[in-house]
């Protein structure tokens, strides 16, 4: 392999919480006096103690080959942004170093340097040069940028009159047409509508295919999975996993999901509910498998609910609503569907209801479940849980046929398909004389 374009060697970044961030001179003077006093007393002041230090990055090393597209994933506050800030030279590392070979451009925010009073045209030039382009380079790309952003008609309008969609489109368009050897992107796709995000991902795909190196921080696992060859998982400032993106994402989701996929309340007094019903446990698992396993599209998923009934109830049904992470409902069902339901009478006690979502029904993506208990005799809610239980379904294939990584819609159930040969002969051609006759 050729020489890496980025070589990061034991990069660390320390923030001092107490001392360094002193904002006013007075605080600094106070601290100085405090330090002097402490020295006299032979003590080390609390302010200079280790407790006020915070390592946002600790001993991070990795290298990137030319043309690689690397995803950087991790929870909020894990240190991803600090890493990007150091590579973009916005701040300096405390120790360690990084070697970057080639022109690097970073996009940590969409529309950096935009001035609301300037027109779209002026902002394209300003933004382009802020990002490191020369005026002539922006000029050469100008028409392409305008076409991508679809703002031709508003080029001479101040951007403060733009809709937020137009603003974001224009800003991304400028950045997307930068031609650096290395592109660093931080969560820029979190803005804009789905249509636009798709367009941006497409543009990024082109960039990657053009052989340029991309470093991409995102919480959109599907985007990372489909765009990146390799992913790096950062946790508390350290690299905890690095490798093929499908594997690293799997690791990450398992860890992130594990905590959220089972909620238990052992003490009925704290448990969600009311005087008639209390929830003891809700868990989302794949039936009969290890609870740590990722939920995939091809396995049945169980919504397993344990609850105390505190007051006798003649007719009771558990109702679940499955929604997308954005809140749009996907499906709802209740336990009335259970065959033995009609003969039931619910005396006080601990009950367990398992609702199973058949395999190959939900599409991959993030979902949430809410639980409602209904008195079916009075047709009234007994208790509606105000919290949601989240789960994420990942694909089984490593990479979808659509590079965007998903079939549309919340549901993906295999439809029946049949293709047959109707006639082995080639289609009859229209005869030239017939056309002439007409």
């Amino acid at each position, binding site marked *: 392999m050729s020489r890496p374009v980025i070589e990061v060697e034991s990069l660390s970044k320390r923030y001092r919480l107490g001392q360094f961030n002193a904002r006013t001179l007075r605080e600094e003077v106070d601290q100085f006096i405090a330090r002097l006093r402490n020295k006299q007393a032979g003590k080390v002041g609390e302010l200079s103690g280790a407790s006020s230090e915070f390592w946002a990055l600790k001993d991070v090393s990795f290298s990137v080959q030319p043309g690689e597209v690397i995803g950087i994933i991790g929870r909020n506050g894990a240190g991803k942004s600090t890493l990007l800030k150091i590579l973009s030279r916005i701040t*300096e590392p*405390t120790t360690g170093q990084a070697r970057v070979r080639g022109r*690097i451009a970073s996009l940590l925010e969409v529309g950096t340097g935009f001035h609301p*009073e300037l027109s779209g045209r002026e902002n394209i*030039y*300003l933004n382009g040069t802020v990002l490191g382009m020369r005026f002539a380079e922006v000029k050469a790309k100008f028409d392409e940028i305008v076409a991508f952003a679809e703002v031709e008609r508003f080029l001479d309008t101040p951007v403060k009159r733009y809709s937020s969609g137009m603003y974001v489109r224009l800003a991304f368009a400028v950045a997307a047409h930068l031609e650096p*050897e290395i592109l660093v992107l931080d969560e820029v796709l979190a803005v804009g509508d789905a249509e636009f995000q798709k367009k941006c991902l497409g543009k990024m795909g082109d960039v990657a295919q053009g052989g340029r190196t991309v470093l991409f921080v995102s919480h959109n696992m599907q985007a990372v999975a489909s765009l990146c060859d390799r992913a790096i998982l950062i946790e508390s400032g350290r690299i905890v996993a690095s490798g093929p993106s499908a594997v690293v994402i799997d690791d990450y989701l398992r860890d992130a999901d594990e905590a959220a996929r089972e909620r238990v309340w052992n003490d009925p007094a704290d448990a969600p509910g009311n005087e008639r019903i209390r929830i003891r446990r809700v868990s989302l698992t794949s039936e009969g498998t290890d609870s740590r396993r990722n939920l995939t599209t091809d396995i049945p998923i169980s919504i397993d609910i344990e609850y105390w009934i505190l007051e006798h109830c003649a007719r009771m049904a558990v109702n679940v609503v499955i929604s997308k992470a954005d809140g749009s409902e996907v499906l709802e069902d209740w336990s009335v569907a259970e065959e033995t339901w009609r003969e039931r009478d619910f005396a006080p006690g601990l009950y367990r209801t398992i609702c199973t979502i058949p395999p190959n029904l939900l599409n991959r993506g993030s979902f949430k479940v809410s639980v409602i208990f209904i008195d079916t005799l009075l047709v009234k809610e007994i208790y509606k849980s105000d919290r949601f239980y989240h789960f994420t379904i990942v694909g089984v294939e490593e990479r979808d046929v659509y590079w965007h990584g998903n079939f549309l819609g919340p549901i993906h159930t295999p439809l029946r398909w049949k293709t047959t040969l109707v006639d082995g002969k080639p289609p009859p051609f229209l005869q030239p004389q017939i056309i002439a006759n007409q």
Partner: protein
Amino acid sequence: MNQIPTDYELVIRPTRGWLTLNLAEVWHYRDLLLLLVHRDFVAKYKQTILGPAWFVLQPLLMTVVFSVIFGEIAKIPTDGLPPILFYLAGLLGWNYFAQTFQNTSGTFLSNVGLFGKVYFPRLVVPLSVVISNFFAFALQLATLLVIWIYFKLFTDAGGLFGFSTGIVWLPLVLLQIAALSLGVGLWLSALTAKYRDFSFLSGFIIQIWMYATPVIYPLSQIPEKWRWIAVLNPMTMPIEAIKIMFLGQGTVVGAYVLFSISITVLSLLSGVLVFNKIEKTFVDSI
């Protein structure tokens, strides 16, 4: 397909020491510098009725106020020159200095959003301020000339003043003022980035500084014995020089000029170094 220039390698590591200024990089960003000048100019006067006329009106109004307070009420002498012209000539250099100083001293604080998200040599921003303030200077210069001609042709005071051949030095004096205001402004911007207290101080500093500079009084009014104190102020010589150039009256001494230039060079160099040092980690202390 993928061309990585082997000659370009950037090493990101903690900087030690002070002499890390990369002027070639500033040069690479010269287009940005010009666009920032354009932005300042457009943004400042959008949604004002008078627009760039403010460049002319603001010093005129100040001159009127000075004429009333210092000329009529306090009766501070003006080297025998018509007060309006005296103040206007003094303000020509001073306003450029004060504007540039105040704009550059806020560099870090007013660009937090930009500096926190994208890298470019931060020095580009104060440099763009120095250039965009040239426009205000030029308009003010034109105003001075118009009023100068009026006084020359239509008033009895016409014989009291006149251009001096020293006017050929005007570009150099302007350069010195630019360098000094940039140097001091950079110092203050670096201090403000660390201690917010200085953002309150900058307005105060510039007010006091004006009274310490012969803007509203001539240097000749200060007794010979104490003059050396006034000359410690590096702005004294440029302001006096401008008055000589346009009005033929003022006190300029070679030794004082040399001293003032040395202070200017010193403050510019140290200002750039301090600024350069602070810019590296400034985003961490926001």
